């Protein structure tokens, strides 16, 4: 009897079923990784990984931010996030040129404060005016895109001296990487609070959460403000990447971020998502782009990239349709085990093919 009890306790101490949705992104990740390695093995060098980190950092952080907003449910996806990152970028550059924000701390404080203010405003409208979140975020998208052009009509300005080396991406251990690690740790700390539980339940069934005594408005507001922090960090990484002010570049992060969010297995309907999925989604996008670059499409490059993002997105969604079936078949299989076994499997494939 005791053995059975222990077994039950063991069985119930590992949560293996709630993140089965990660299987699809994991599978796609390894498939792309091996393909990328076959096309261009330089990916696994110091500079290869360094530039990968530098290029994906803003996208990963954007996806973190979007994860919190999508988790809160009501089909809320923040379209405004790209232009908003652009706003932080151009306004910081202009303020820096005007003699403000001379210290790194100043930059961070400014960016995070802006993130909090905008997301608080956004959340308050969604909660109390009861407009559909998509309308609010679309309005934000258009407004910020316009404001950015007013602040800085054409790309220009220069990032401060301390920030420029961050965006070089020659080494693995650069400040951008540390920033990302810190952001990920913050994410994991949040997932271990009760707040995360409220957020997940609210996204998945707002009525159930409300009638069970969850303070749904407060949860939504806090989720948005956390998203604001991540969006601010993302904007700083983005500024490091471009090294100047750019009113247009930020805008594309809206669509890239949403694509990465969905590729990472998060549900746009709410209640499902996490840091690991966000990282995988962003890395998958990076790898697709990396592979396509090796084909040298020249002028068609961006067109082919967008086409492939779309194609992979559709494939990922189609694969997720069979996910309930996969979940049932692989009842006792943990996602981590799947991750490692997939890794080993693909590496063996790679090794044999390169022999």
């Amino acid at each position, binding site marked *: 009897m005791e053995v059975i009890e222990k077994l*039950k*306790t063991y*069985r*119930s*101490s*590992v*949560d*293996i*079923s*709630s993140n089965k949705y990660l299987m699809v992104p994991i599978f796609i990740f390894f498939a792309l990784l091996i393909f990328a390695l076959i096309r261009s093995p330089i990916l696994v060098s110091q500079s290869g990984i360094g530039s990968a980190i530098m290029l994906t950092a803003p996208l990963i952080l954007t996806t973190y931010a979007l994860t919190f907003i999508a988790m809160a449910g009501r089909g809320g996806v923040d379209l405004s996030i790209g232009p908003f990152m652009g706003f932080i970028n151009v306004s910081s550059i202009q303020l820096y040129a005007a003699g403000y924000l001379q210290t790194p701390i100043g930059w961070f404080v400014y960016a995070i404060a802006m993130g909090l203010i905008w997301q608080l405003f956004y959340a308050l409208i969604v909660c109390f005016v009861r407009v559909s979140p998509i309308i609010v975020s679309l309005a934000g998208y258009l407004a910020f895109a316009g404001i950015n052009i007013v602040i800085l009509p054409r790309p220009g300005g220069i990032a401060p001296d301390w920030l420029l080396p961050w965006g070089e991406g020659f080494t693995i251990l650069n400040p951008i990487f540390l920033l990302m690690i810190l952001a990920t740790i913050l994410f994991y700390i949040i997932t271990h*609070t*009760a*707040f995360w*539980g*409220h957020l*997940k*339940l609210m*996204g*998945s*069934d*707002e*009525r*159930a*959460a*409300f*009638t*069970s*005594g*969850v*303070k*749904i408005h*407060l*949860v939504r507001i*806090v989720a948005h403000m956390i998203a604001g922090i991540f969006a601010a960090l993302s904007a700083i990484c983005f500024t490091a990447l471009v090294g100047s002010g750019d009113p247009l570049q930020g805008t594309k992060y809206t669509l890239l971020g949403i694509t990465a969010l969905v590729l990472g297995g998060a*549900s746009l309907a709410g*209640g*499902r998502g996490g840091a690991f999925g966000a990282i995988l989604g962003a890395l998958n996008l990076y790898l697709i782009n990396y592979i396509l670059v090796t084909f040298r499409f020249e002028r068609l490059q961006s067109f082919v990239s967008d086409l492939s993002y779309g194609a992979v997105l559709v494939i990922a969604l189609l694969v997720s349709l069979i996910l*309930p079936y996969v*979940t*049932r078949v692989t009842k006792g299989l943990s996602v981590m085990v799947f991750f490692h076994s997939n890794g080993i499997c693909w590496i063996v494939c790679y090794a044999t093919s390169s022999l």
Partner: protein
Amino acid sequence: MSAEKNIEDNTSKEVLSENSKTVQGDIYVQDVHKYFGVTRALNGVNFNANFGEIHAIVGGNGCGKSTLAKVLSGVLPVDKGKVSVIGQTPTSPVMARNLGIATVFQEVMIAEESSVVDNLFVGSDDFWYKNLTQREKVLKAQEIMEDLVGEYVDPYTQAFNLSLPIKAWVTIARAFLRDNTKVLILDESSAALDFDSTERLFKKMRELRDKGVAIFIVTHRIAELVRISDKATVMRDGKDVGVLEKKDLNEKNLIGLMTGREETGEKSTSAAMQTKTDKVVMRAENLVVWPDSKPVNFEVKKGEIVGITGLDGNGQDDFVKILAGVQESHGGTIEILDINEKFSKYNSLDDAKKNGISFVSGDRKKEGILPNLSIYENLVVPLYSKTSKAGFLGFINWMELNGIYDWEVERLNIKTGSSDNLIGSLSGGNQQKVMIARSFAQHPKVLILNDPARGIDISTKRDLYVHLRKYVEEGNTVVFLSSELEEFIGLCPKVIVFRNGTIFDIFEKDKINADTLLEGMFGQTAGVGETIISSKSNLSSSSIKNKDENNKKSEERKIVKVINFDEENISKNNNKIKIKTF
């Protein structure tokens, strides 16, 4: 139990506790009103309860039981009156939670994407801090689920993998997991549970009662509540009509109070429509409404109005939807007399329409009006293709439609402003008239009405009945589902009562009165086909109860096998006036 017998024995007047309205209990509701638009869900209800008792709230469909439960748990604010739980008024679910009110709602509210343990402990934590570690939660979840469900439920399983009874258990277990519970409200919580499960639930409820918790149960299952409750408040039309103490708590008294003898005593002035011919126009053979329910055989004659009723979620609405071709059956055939006077089978909405069947739903918002179109367009929209001109170009023939519109509006006496106004500018009753006019305009042979009179005022209802009579006199047929039993009296020569997804009993002519129908709905009449409870009036009350319980047992076992609860739920939801809480 015959209807006459019931009325004779009805001693509801004497058994009412004299002082129940004057002494306030620990928990009381005083003269509470709650309106949803024109519908008066609560219309001056009084309710008193004390700690350490199991108190049942009973009544027919739509009498405000669930609304009262929602008011008590802070989900719905009241429009007028006073709610007091230990001296305080719960105004939000958060506050109700802090006051120690735990509610299990009728809808199985569960976060499908989240695990069982997360669902169980929803709302138990502070905003940032967990009051219990995950491990403690898991162990507690395992313990309570094993205790209640009687089998091991993996606490990490995501809720969408669970069957409906287990989901129902999760919502119930939520309430039992709280340690500060002082008031427990169970709204139709046993509906999805089988007999053994219900027994386990009752055991738990008794334990809690003995600890001094006040428990309110809202249920349709009379036999159950007679067994478990110490007291019962009976409601009718949003008002409390009586309180029964334990010693007076039996089916007879309850049903007597629910129907309200003094009101049904007055005879309806008009006689029921008499069917003139014996020609069957529509029939169903071995029709299976739910996957596991008994097949239904059904016939309706030319020029007949057939009433259909049943307690919410007993398959009557699924049945009429199947007849109308809106929903698919689980077996059996439905046939209609076609133009060539031959029976032809149909199983789609398209076929149904071709054969002259028209369907009007009482759920105007969901299945009726097109809210962004005008009154005119709402009325004539199905006629566009019929009246179109110029062959494949299909120009809409406005001239002809104008005539139809004017004719129907005048005939049904619809009070409209300009015909170009949006349908939403009309009152609910007039909207419903437009829906009926839409059906009449297609000249159907068979009109199927799914609770058309819901939420419309009495004069509109009378109008509606007059039109139905005229329509039937012209040799057409009406299948009329209603949850308001009074509507059948003086209109339908035949009323069919549904129970558990099949025909339970059929009442004709004189037998149609609210008392008998209600008894039928609660399964207290002889039923058709098999004698379920025969010669019951000769038995002593205790053996009645036993027999009833056995009968329940077998019936409820049967229900449990029906995996179709989701559908039942959906249909239930369709039937309710949706209450948006946030």
